[in-house]
């Protein structure tokens, strides 16, 4: 009954259109009122939720990504990708996907990825003779890589939602192969479609020019070296690396690339404030909600329930994947990570699934949720940029969903994809 009040109130509030963050807060209060838990405790949990050093990594990563995405980085990454794969049949589709892999190295946002890469690539692909719907769908689906490829602020959100016991450095490197696997499966799909539809080949870039393009793009990819190198060598904490990356991104944009105007900066900060404050308050209220869940012993009860259904971890993971795919069509990634992780992680842990591995499953799964209607932020932004309707996108997107689901299945059932790389680094 306790759980019913808590979860039921939450679902009702979300359904009537209350912002998810505040719905979590109000549901926690309803739970506290029902269970005779002092309101002070709820208030303290909200304050504690935003009172952690690790959390600072989120605004820093979002800010660094925003500076680089808007500061001409996207165009340069596309240039580098063109040098590498532009000459293959269907080359521009591959350029699009590879540019998103690179973009993932500077930002963890698939929406920012779609907006930045899409603005450059979709018009270029249409001009070269690719169907507009195909160009848009490649952009949308390719951008999901950004969530997995480090650095990813979503990995930080997962680490927080999991109770802060998982190392962010481990989560970052765990995302490398799932991210690349997603990119590779989309590449294979595009190669098949390109052959069937006889898409054009691009030109080879002369060697000297190629070197110059690569050198130009390397400045941006330096961010990832600072972040991963800094964290893995133990020079920085994740939070420090993110802040240093911000300063580095700022310096490269303003003094190396020099195609961003100083007068644009206040707008950039304004947008970042909105993006980040929205997730911070979500984290604050979600931590109160997580506390209520724990008091009502809901994770333990749910674990017991799942174990009565099946004690085979493959079956349980399959069921959880179905549940998350369904929720992902209705809601965004960040709130779902915050709501579902404290509920589901104990279940899979009881079956021997590593929290790192489960993090990757959730991010691939909920990443698919970003490109599925009725609610898919990346899909909406991509369609707006590609100037097509959601219905048009849907007609051609099924093979892409197929490739993404194959990736999800591999990430779910082959733990080594996520676990091998972190196992090489002992902290």
């Amino acid at each position, binding site marked *: 009954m306790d759980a019913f009040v808590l979860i039921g109130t939450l679902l009702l*509030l*979300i*359904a*009537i*259109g*209350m*912002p*998810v*963050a*505040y719905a979590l*807060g*109000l549901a926690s209060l309803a739970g506290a009122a029902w269970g005779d838990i002092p309101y*002070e405790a709820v*208030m303290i949990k*909200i*304050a504690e939720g*935003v*009172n952690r*050093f690790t959390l*600072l990594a989120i*605004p*820093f990563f*979002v800010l660094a990504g*925003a500076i680089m*995405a808007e500061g001409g980085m996207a165009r340069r990454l596309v240039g580098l990708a063109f040098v590498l794969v532009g000459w293959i049949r269907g080359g521009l589709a591959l350029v699009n996907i590879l540019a998103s892999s690179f973009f993932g190295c500077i930002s963890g*946002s*698939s*929406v*920012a990825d779609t907006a930045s890469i899409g603005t450059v690539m979709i018009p270029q692909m249409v001009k070269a003779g690719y169907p507009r719907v195909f160009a848009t769908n490649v952009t949308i689906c390719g951008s999901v890589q950004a*969530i997995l490829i480090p650095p990813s*602020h979503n990995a930080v959100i997962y680490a927080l939602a999991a109770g802060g016991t998982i190392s962010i450095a481990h989560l970052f490197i765990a995302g490398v192969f799932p991210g690349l696997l997603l990119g590779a499966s989309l590449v294979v799909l595009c190669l098949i479609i390109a052959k069937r539809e006889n898409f054009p080949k691009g030109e080879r870039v002369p060697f000297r020019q190629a070197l110059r393009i690569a050198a130009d793009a390397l400045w941006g990819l330096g961010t990832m070296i600072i972040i991963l190198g800094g964290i893995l060598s133990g020079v*920085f904490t994740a*939070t*420090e690396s993110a*802040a*240093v990356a*911000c*300063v580095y991104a700022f310096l490269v944009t303003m003094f190396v690339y020099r195609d961003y105007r100083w007068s644009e900066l206040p707008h950039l*900060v*304004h*947008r*970042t*404030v*909105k*993006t*980040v*404050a*929205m997730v*911070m*308050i979500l984290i604050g209220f979600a931590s109160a909600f997580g506390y209520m869940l724990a008091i009502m012993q809901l994770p333990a009860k749910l674990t017991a329930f799942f174990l009565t259904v099946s004690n085979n971890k493959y079956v349980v993971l399959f069921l959880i994947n179905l549940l998350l795919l369904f929720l992902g069509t*209705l*809601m*965004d*990634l960040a*709130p779902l990570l915050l709501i579902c992780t404290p509920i589901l992680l104990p279940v899979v842990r009881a079956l021997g699934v590593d929290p790192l591995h489960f993090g990757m499953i959730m991010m691939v799964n909920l990443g698919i949720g970003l490109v599925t209607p*009725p*609610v898919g*932020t990346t899909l*909406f*932004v991509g369609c707006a940029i590609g100037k097509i309707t959601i219905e048009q996108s849907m007609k051609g997107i099924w093979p892409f969903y197929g490739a993404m689901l194959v990736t999800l299945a591999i990430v779910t059932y082959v733990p080594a994809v996520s676990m091998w790389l972190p196992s090489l680094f002992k902290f």
Partner: protein
Amino acid sequence: MRELYARLMARLYRASIWIAGIAIVVMTLVIPWGVFTRYVLGTGSEWPEPLAILLMIIFTFFGAAACYRANAHISVALFRDMLPPPARAALAMVVDLLMALLALFMIVWGARLVEATWHQSIAEFPWLPVGASYMPLPLGGIVTLLFIVEHAWIGPARDLAEALAADAATELD
């Protein structure tokens, strides 16, 4: 009266964005400074980390209030949009009331938290009471409540109409 209130709220919005914006910029500068003192000056500083956390609390509660006015919070409009317009308007009223309830909770219980922790001090800043660091909770609650009143009484912020249309998506996911 409505005009005046809307104008005041537009100012309050700008002030909240400025407060949060300055907080995030300062946070971004003090953390690398801490790294710099540790590795280059070899001294290490105690203050950048707790200062950044204090700024984070300010950032969150003022920024979130501004987000409410700019309609930047994540919500699920799917079911609401299936309803006929009159029902939708009624539901919006209910949501505003529930939002106001939560804002009131933040004001009242946030103030109690401030009061209860006023006599403890933060280790790195002995002059600063723990309670002061929690001040953004009730203050952010007050700002949010004022914005909710504007929304219920006057409607969506007109000065943000352009931004509301352009910023439909966030760069979070």
